[in-house]
């Protein structure tokens, strides 16, 4: 990549912001080339594709859970919303919240994402989100391996130092022993 970029650009557009690191201006490259680099920013994701929702294409159903008594006799907590997109037959349900109104909104958002996925599988919001997620994960892994590698290296160094120190320390007793024995030998030889 880097080499292509440098070849595409005139020499004077290659500059270095930080000493030692070469940076390339990507203006000459198509958009998707650039995106393959870093993590997509959270505030620069593609928008939620709510324009794909057309109310006349939808079939909405509110599921209150089963038969049995209704009205004041029972006190239901759930309000599930089910949406069917008639042209594609995609069915989406949502019971994220206790409020039916919020569930209706949320169900539409989910359906819109699914429709976009069908329409434009490569550059839709969900794909970008997935990409972002995996990249963030990768980054985390990279960071953690780097961190532990560093810690390991430091430990190794510490050990070596200790070893050196240990070897420098002189054991007085054994030294004395050897001295005494050598002296004895000398005496004996005489």
């Amino acid at each position, binding site marked *: 990549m880097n080499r292509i970029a440098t070849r595409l650009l005139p020499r004077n557009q290659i500059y270095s912001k930080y000493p030692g690191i070469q940076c390339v201006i990507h203006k000459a490259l198509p958009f998707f080339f650039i995106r393959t680099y870093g993590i997509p920013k959270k505030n620069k994701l593609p928008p939620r594709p709510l324009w794909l929702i057309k109310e006349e294409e939808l079939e909405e159903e509110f599921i209150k859970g089963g038969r049995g008594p*209704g009205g004041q006799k*029972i006190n239901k*907590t759930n309000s599930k919303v089910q949406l069917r997109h008639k042209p594609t037959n995609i069915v989406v349900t949502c*019971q994220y919240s206790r409020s039916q*109104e919020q569930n209706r909104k949320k169900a539409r958002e989910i359906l819109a994402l699914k429709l976009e996925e069908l329409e434009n599988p490569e550059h839709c919001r969900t794909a970008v989100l997935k990409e972002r997620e995996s990249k963030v994960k990768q980054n985390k892994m990279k960071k953690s391996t780097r961190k532990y590698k560093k810690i390991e290296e430091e430990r190794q160094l510490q050990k070596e130092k200790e070893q050196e120190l240990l070897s420098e320390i002189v054991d007085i007793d054994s030294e004395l022993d050897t001295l005494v024995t050598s002296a004895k030998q000398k005496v004996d030889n005489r």
Partner: protein
Amino acid sequence: MTRISSKVIREAYKVSKLLPPLLRATKNLDLAKCELQWIKRELPKNKWTEAVIRRSNYEPLQYVLGSQPFGSLDILCRRNVLIPRWETEEWVTRLSDMIRQHIKDTTQLKILDACTGTGCISLLLHQKLSEEAKYKTDILGFDVSYDAVTLANDNLNKNEPSWSLEKSSVTFRKSNIFHWSLNDTAESFDLIVSNPPYITREEYSSPVTLEGVARSVKLYEPSLALIGQYEFYEKLVDITVSTNAKAFIFELGSNDQATYVEKQINSLAAGWKTKMYSDTADKIRCVLGWKKDTVWDFLVKF
């Protein structure tokens, strides 16, 4: 009561330690998961265990969490006051949408909400008519219970900051429907709405499988807001006639109550039409009535 199988309990335990107790009240793993999610989202962490214990003793989730969504509003809920039901939310939303569609005159709309409870019907009507569309509404809600009126006023105060109550008004006060007389408000109303107690004594004491009342309702919700048969509808029709109302809509639980209201209004006043309305669960839920040849004729399409 269906017994929960040990397999389901084990499965629940794997997800979370807090889940098995919730199964006792919900009888359904999916619903228990949802409820746990809501508890975790709406309460601080140190209150989760307490909430789950309360819920496992069949206390309604709305009392545990303290509120219930009603349309776009969040209605506070407390013991001694009936929790708003989804059926009520449904017909109130439908009614206000139809009013916005068919009544073009926005200058004056006076609504009486009898047996208001949490005040949910009044507040949602105000929100939908006065805030979202520019109707000038005067809504009066009353209830016999002191707790209910206090709670209704709390709900009003909670929503008031986001409202512009300059032209329109919502008021709640304590009064007994059986002591109601026209002198209480020397005024007339356009529309009477009500969700009175409508469960008969036999139904209240029979088991759930025989069209009875759910355990959590019987244990925790006030019977004052639940038990009633014809007496409330008799009084409501009286009020409708004496306040010169042009339309009414009452929630109810059985066909008999609907035919009773029909008979009663036709015997007391002439020129009234009635219609029954079933909710999306296909159960009869409301009776509507309106004076012929008025703006309220659109209610025929309800």
